[in-house]
């Protein structure tokens, strides 16, 4: 089984949430509104194993487990394009773009042998999957796997920080575990959005004041751009809350 794929730079996948490595999140803190998103994956779900390896597991009823992915994420509504997508529909930071974007259409959040459907474009996307496009996936192996391997390597490195962070926050905030358990049992699933400020104490080299100065205008900008649309009320509230928190932190600067 072979899959052909070539990116035509249509820009259609540059919309909505963008999970980031910790380094990518820090590098783009002046452009992306950052949060940490916790997503439970049920036992038996296709990404359970890899999510458990890169994240944590929590116990559910009847001795079941759920894996939880903990991803620093650019919190962008699905109808909003990436702030780095230019009016011409091209990436303004192509040379320095996040690892998640580089690895597309593959995903290091999944096993290498479980990538097959990722090369089928969503409706409206203009990926070239014709026979003229190069073969990029054969017998469940990625051909030219540098970006996939690079993303996976970084996710493994991040896991060394995110796992103890997750255990610490679960101990500190009992409601977090309950919410994750509830979501894992629900047929529709869901995610928990946690302020990025909870992760900063686990990143020794990050100056929280400098970081807050970068995030504050970004959150304010997104709050303003989401203020009028009732469909984006959840996003709006989150931006307002985050802006308020970063503002308080900047005021404490010595």
């Amino acid at each position, binding site marked *: 089984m072979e899959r052909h794929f070539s990116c035509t730079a249509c820009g259609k996948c540059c919309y909505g949430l963008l*999970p980031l490595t910790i380094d990518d999140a820090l590098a783009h803190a002046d452009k992306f509104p950052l949060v940490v998103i916790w997503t439970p994956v049920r036992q038996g779900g296709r990404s359970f194993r890899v999510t458990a390896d890169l994240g944590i597991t929590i116990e559910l009823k009847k001795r079941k487990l759920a894996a939880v992915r903990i991803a620093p994420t650019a919190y962008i509504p699905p109808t909003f394009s990436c702030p780095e997508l230019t009016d011409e529909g091209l990436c303004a930071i192509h040379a320095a773009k996040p690892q998640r974007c580089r690895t597309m259409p593959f995903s290091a959040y999944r096993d290498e042998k479980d990538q097959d459907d990722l090369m089928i474009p969503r409706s409206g996307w203009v990926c070239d999957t014709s026979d003229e496009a190069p073969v990029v996936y054969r017998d469940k192996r990625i051909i030219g796997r540098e970006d996939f391997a690079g993303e996976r390597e970084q996710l493994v490195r991040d896991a060394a920080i995110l796992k103890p962070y997750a255990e610490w*926050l679960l101990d500190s905030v009992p409601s977090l575990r309950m919410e994750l358990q509830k979501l894992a049992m629900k047929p529709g699933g*869901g995610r928990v959005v946690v302020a990025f400020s909870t992760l*900063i104490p686990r*990143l*020794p080299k990050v100056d929280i004041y400098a970081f807050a100065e970068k995030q504050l205008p970004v959150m304010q900008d997104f709050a303003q751009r989401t203020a009028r649309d009732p469909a984006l009320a959840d996003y709006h509230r989150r931006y307002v809350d985050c802006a308020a928190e970063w503002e308080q932190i900047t005021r404490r600067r010595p």
Partner: protein
Amino acid sequence: MRSRFAAYVHGDLDHIENTHAKEVRDSFNRSAAESTAKSVEWVNLEIRSTADGGENDDTGTVEFAARFKKDGELQVHHERSSFRREEGRWVYVDGQMNPKGEPLRVEKVGRNEPCPCGSGKKYKKCCGA
């Protein structure tokens, strides 16, 4: 324990850092700790229980409640801290904390929405399957 509380009250982060065990020193974010300490008005420290930590011990734990005011509201930081004797000095190793009301929000993911894992697939066909 008490000296570290006093250091937080006075913003003496040097003392906080100097009383960390080796493994804590590497992961300690001084600016974040300072920012948190400054965000509150410290009220008092209550030691609730202790275990070991005596003259003949090399480890000990302290359960405490540190009260503080934030935005005019009285709150409690409740923690069980572990300490270890390193070269004759007691140093902080780690702690289990109680709720501080960290901001978190639960969201539904629409079945047809893009998956939060960033694969570009619909949630129902990816991590929601």
